[in-house]
């Protein structure tokens, strides 16, 4: 395995946000079949160590490409833009207002008349925003508008967190009922 290859090349896929997840899983399985330590369990220590390293790399690559936000960040990183923890891009005011309103609705939903339905509705809305932002990101990336792609990532980090909070609220409701 050539660990200098980028993750897309590793799986023999086009470097693009649009990804055939089915194909990714299949390639992942093929590579695991070749490199997994279990395939080298009866060989020497060196082979086994190399197998562990190769599979760890493979797992990292798979996880990155499988998860949309990680995949988007990785694509931007390949363009030389690191959007890790340090991403402090200013976000447009209207977006932040919208996020605050959504968070308020989350608090209200959990304590309202029909919390399950309210949370459901909110989840649908958040996921809609997420999907729209991903296509924005993709368009910006294709057009090489890296600044705008970076802002999309920052927004997606917000939306992602909101979705996780909605799910956590649903879990808490399930506990109660």
């Amino acid at each position: 395995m050539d660990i200098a290859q980028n993750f897309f090349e590793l799986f023999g896929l086009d470097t693009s946000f649009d990804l055939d997840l089915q194909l990714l899983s299949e390639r992942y399985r093929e590579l695991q079949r070749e490199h997994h330590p279990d395939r080298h369990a009866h060989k020497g220590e060196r082979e086994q160590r190399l197998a562990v390293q190769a599979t760890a790399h493979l797992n990292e690559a798979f996880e990155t490409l499988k998860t949309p936000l990680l995949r988007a960040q990785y694509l931007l990183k390949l363009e030389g833009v690191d959007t890790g923890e340090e991403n402090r891009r200013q976000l447009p005011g209207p977006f932040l207002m919208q996020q605050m309103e959504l968070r308020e609705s989350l608090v209200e939903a959990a304590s309202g008349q029909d919390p399950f339905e309210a949370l459901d509705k909110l989840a649908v809305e958040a996921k809609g925003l997420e999907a729209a932002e991903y296509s924005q990101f993709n368009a910006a990336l294709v057009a090489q508008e890296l600044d705008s792609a970076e802002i999309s990532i920052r927004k997606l980090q917000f939306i992602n967190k909101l979705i996780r909070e909605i799910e956590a609220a649903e879990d808490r409701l399930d506990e109660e009922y």
Partner: protein
Amino acid sequence: MALLQIAEPGLSLDPHQRKLAVGIDLGTTNSLVATVRNGVAETLSDSDGVHILPSVVHYSEAKPPLVGQQAAFKANQDPYNTVQSIKRLMGRSASDALQLGEQLPYEFVESGTGMPYLRTAAGDLSPVQISADILKALNARAEQSLGGELEGAVITVPAYFDDAQRQATKDAAQLAGLNVLRLLNEPTAAAVAYGLDQQDKGVVAVYDLGGGTFDISILRLTRGVFEVLATGGDSALGGDDFDHVLANWLMQQGGEHQYDASTTRELLGLARSVKERLTAEEQINLTLPGTGKQLAVTRADFNELVKPLVAKTIRACKRALKDAGVTTEEIQDVVMVGGSTRVPLVQSSVGEFFQRAPHIDIDPDRVVAIGAALQADILAGNKPDSELLLLDVLPLSLGLETMGGLVEKVIHRNTAIPVARAQEFTTYQDGQTAMLVHVLQGERELVDHCRSLARFELRGIPPMAAGAAKIRVTFQVDADGLLNVSAKELSTGIESAVQVKPSYGLSDSEITRMLQESYSNAQDDREARSLREQQVEADRLISALRSAIAEDGSRLLSEQEAKDLLAEIEVLENLTKGESAGAIEAGVEHLAQVSDFFASRRMDSSIQSALQGQSVDYFEKEKG
């Protein structure tokens, strides 16, 4: 004409000769060894034709230890030297062992290593050594019945075993002279025995009711990846409890009668045999020991008695499904493990709950060993074309202690292994030259609630301002779920590594509890986390202010100003001892405000001193 080749005795000429590999189910009550012969996986028996080896070891002064049934016979007459259920102590600390002391009749010895040692006639022995004696017996049985040395073994462990418990199991195998091809999760092994790994995807429930424990595991299978979604159960519920309720009932049927110890034991044995016969028969006629009374026991009677116990296991299944986030409709297969799943009421109740007939074709006592043997055969290289590939996940998250007793997770649970992940950390104080790396496992946010796996120090960091040093800590988890940690200071390349080899571990029920608590205590954790964060923030401000006063106080502050500041610092110090994150936050804000003038004076003074002796020209160049 070709020359005839003559092989040295014992060496084969055939490069394709099968390698001998076994699967071992190292159980709490019983152990088994299995192998694949002529394409069929089967358990191996001793010379008397008995397959099950009780996990019991008896130690005496001069003779080698007795293992199995012979050792079990000694349990009554020589309890201190007859070790049972040693699996419960694997990978656990001396203090854990003391807590279990009430259940276990052994004398524990302080060893200084953190591992509990048991005092026996053959000396003080660790759980690893005792387990190794059981494994040696299985190894000997396998070599005798297969006629050669073993290439290696797959040993099964409960899915929720943490790093310490897995490491202890591997150590025991090494001590027994076994080459461990892989540690395999017990429920995964059971699923493999039924060939469920060949399906494209699905969710599998493994219901394991043994003699003394009950485990439920929910696994997700996605194109060759077996992922443990949730585990649950009851470490003090099993088939033995069925025997007890039936024995009590038999006593009541006998009416007023005083039972001595030996008759009670006889009753218990009778209850067990009645339970076993009722799996095939509807009614058993018997004579009660002691009173000589004639009695008929029907299956309906028995079902009525054990119903509450079975219901308890079903409730645990319900909880596990919820933890896993799946519904009963999503469960495609239910696999039965453990002798007690032969009870018809257990089978029907499980079938009813999951709305599908459970798999019962393979002997539930042997199914785990058989799955392990199938995997061992592949790992030894006997089936190069095999499609089977089991990808495992990390059972519990791994992390590091950060300031304030918080745990920063580096690898989350259910991440596919092997995996390597690096995280960068920095120093907390100016001039800090060493850093303690504390590795933890668990789902909670505070160090005290997680399991400490290892501590090591990275020394020789060059003195720098707080936050300037960059220390990269790398975690590497291999396919067995065992961890290696290394730390490296990036500017100097100074390195330190440790193979995480803790001397003790968590109990099964503790792990179950920790997992459950990680969900139910999420709110508490968030509050605790925010309290700790505020405390860290306060400490940081206090320490910075104190060192600033020590350095520049006499030069930049009047006596009164210095006194006032120190008084304000003390106020905040007292606040940090409290439990209110909000109060500390406000205190930090306040101290920052009242010390602001001092900070500006220091800033001015340092700019002035920085500019002294610099030409304006240089300053401009720097700027522009």
